[in-house]
């Protein structure tokens, strides 16, 4: 049964967008004044939409008839046998339309965009999955769309750039800074500053200023709700552990959230350790970051000694980010979720492992979760159940992996 702490955990954030209170918590709204009214409007619109059956029904219909939800919870028989530990299930977000969990959020925000009477959307993207999902939603709703993507990611994810353009979006290559996800966020924010009156910024993860971390979590929590139902159907009980990769953390938040009150379910987030968390080339924010402010939120951030955002690295473009969603920071501090990491090498191994054992090529992001699950399954033992959030498919990564394995 849920105790008071558990209930408090699930009731976050407070009205001002802080997880764990304003004084010591995470989240908030640390943005230029120009964007304040837009965030306030979005919050009002979202609160109203949540209670509007027409909105809820339309989103559910889109999930069903456009995304293809519910997607399966697949028993990974050969992987389970190979590891000789816990029974492993895969939540198949890779089977969604556009190939990842990102579409759950972009459709929800597209509906909000239409409610607000805006006609243009913008987005940042790392691996390109959120960019593709935003471009898809924009095409479906007839919005003008512009996606910002770092030059390094444009190189790594060329196919997704083409997909976005095919869907009618403009892709802007960002040449500033490290030329990856954080720089794409800076540019998208900058666009929003001058276009805020007719443009909605579809943030792709549980990050940014309030209410984005909350509404993205809520749209993504369809993942966890389905897992719950499917688990009860198949095993007549809840799983013992849930594993998901964490960059900004939206697929993890989506699968964790409906289980926050079930304290016997271990929630495990896997961060990108790059070349190792003790090197300077990783993006394991919760493992090595400190409290800071980035992109409108108070959260854990990887910074240098002077407070400048640190250079980060991951083989996976979607996890290559120096911050993390504020709710993950809160769940780490309260101990409700545990956070570990997997290296580039472990992720590349897991990428091939799942392909060979289960006939599923995972996204490099999701491969981080697979990598840790290989250890955790053995640790848990045979009478336990482990769910891995297979957040996306790996087609987009095949070129890059082929290059790396040469």
């Amino acid at each position, binding site marked *: 049964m849920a105790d008071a702490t558990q209930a408090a955990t699930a009731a976050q954030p407070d009205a001002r967008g802080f997880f764990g209170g304003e004084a010591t918590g995470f989240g908030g709204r640390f*943005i230029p004044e120009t964007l*304040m009214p*837009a965030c306030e409007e979005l919050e009002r619109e979202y609160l109203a939409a949540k209670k509007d059956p027409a909105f809820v029904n339309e989103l559910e219909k889109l999930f069903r008839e456009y995304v293809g939800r519910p997607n399966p919870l697949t028993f990974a028989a050969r992987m389970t046998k190979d590891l000789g530990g816990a029974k492993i299930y895969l939540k198949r977000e890779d089977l969604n339309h556009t190939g990842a969990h990102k579409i759950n959020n972009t459709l929800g925000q597209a509906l909000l965009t239409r409610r607000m009477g805006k006609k243009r959307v913008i987005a940042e993207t790392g691996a390109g999955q959120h960019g593709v999902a935003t471009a898809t939603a924009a095409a479906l709703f007839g919005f003008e769309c512009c996606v910002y993507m770092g030059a390094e990611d444009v190189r790594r994810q060329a196919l997704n750039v083409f997909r976005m353009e095919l869907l009618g979006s403009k892709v802007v290559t960002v040449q500033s800074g490290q030329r990856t996800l954080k720089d794409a966020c800076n540019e998208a924010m*900058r666009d929003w500053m001058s276009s805020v009156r007719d443009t909605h910024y579809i943030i792709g993860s549980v990050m940014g200023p309030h209410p984005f971390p909350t509404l993205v979590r809520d749209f993504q929590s369809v993942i966890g709700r389905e897992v719950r139902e499917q688990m009860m159907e198949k095993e007549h009980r809840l799983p013992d552990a849930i594993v998901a990769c964490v960059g900004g953390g939206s697929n993890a938040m989506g699968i964790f959230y409906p289980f926050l009150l079930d304290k016997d379910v271990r929630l495990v987030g896997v961060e990108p350790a790059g070349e190792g968390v003790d090197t300077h080339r990783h993006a394991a924010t919760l493992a090595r970051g400190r409290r800071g402010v980035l992109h409108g939120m108070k959260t854990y951030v990887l910074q240098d000694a002077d407070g400048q955002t640190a250079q980060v690295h991951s083989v996976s473009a979607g996890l290559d980010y120096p911050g993390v969603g504020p709710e993950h920071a809160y769940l780490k501090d309260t101990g409700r979720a545990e956070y570990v990491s997997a290296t580039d090498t472990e992720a590349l191994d897991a990428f091939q492992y799942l392909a060979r054992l289960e006939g599923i090529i995972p996204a490099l992001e999701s491969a981080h979760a697979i990598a840790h699950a290989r250890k955790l399954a053995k640790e848990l033992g045979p009478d336990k159940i482990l769910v891995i959030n297979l957040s996306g498919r790996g087609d987009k990564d095949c070129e890059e992996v082929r290059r790396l394995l040469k």
Partner: protein
Amino acid sequence: MSTVTRIQQTFASLKHAAFIPFFTAGDPDLGTTAALVREAAARGADLIEIGVPFSDPIADGPVIQASYYRALDKGFKVEQVFELARALRQDGLKTPLLCMVSDSLVFHRGLDAFFGAAKESGFDGMIVPDLPAGYEGDAARVAAAKGLDLVFLCAPTTPPERRALIAQRSTGFIYYISVAGITGTRMALPPDLEANVKDLRGRTRTPVCVGFGVSTPEQAAAVGTIAHGVIVGSALVKQIAELVKAGNTGEKLVKAIGAQVQALADAAHGKHA
């Protein structure tokens, strides 16, 4: 604090609109920034804003961001902005100095430590563009305790209830953003500018200064007739970058920017060429 700050004294004594140039600390180098500040003060700047380079400045436009990256690439450290202010004060500079800095850097050092160092080194006010009214936490209290003004920004998109809050919280002056956009040079001033500035002035006795998008003496003259102050940043920073690129550094750069500052200051002050 009941004491009158240097910024408040300046506005109280001015008979015309104030001219407020912005320079990025460490672009092209700290020595030149110091010389630029001294030159600007000598050429008619009434207050001066100094920007602290940050790796992820979401409130600034591409021109200022590029200047931040140039300074950071040369190894700029936050401590150096305090050394800069200290040196300027030791030199006898009397002009009010404002420190424009991202909340990321303030939070990293700690609010009390950052504001304390700013005050001690000779700054008179703080502008933290990503710390909007209502989310400033202890910043207003700490600034007041240290004798620093804390300037809040107000945008064309800001609704009346937030304008009231900003008018109430901001000290020294209110920084009105002339365009709903990031800092940068714009061709024409937006049509809603005058009405919005008038609205703000009707809410408070705190001076209202206009920045973001003011670049030419003509614009400065126009803004000078409706606001208490005219802020120019990107136009100067852009000119500095171009001069450096063309090989004009040191004295040559300082004199050229000085002439630009004088033209803008004269225009803001209502002196017609």
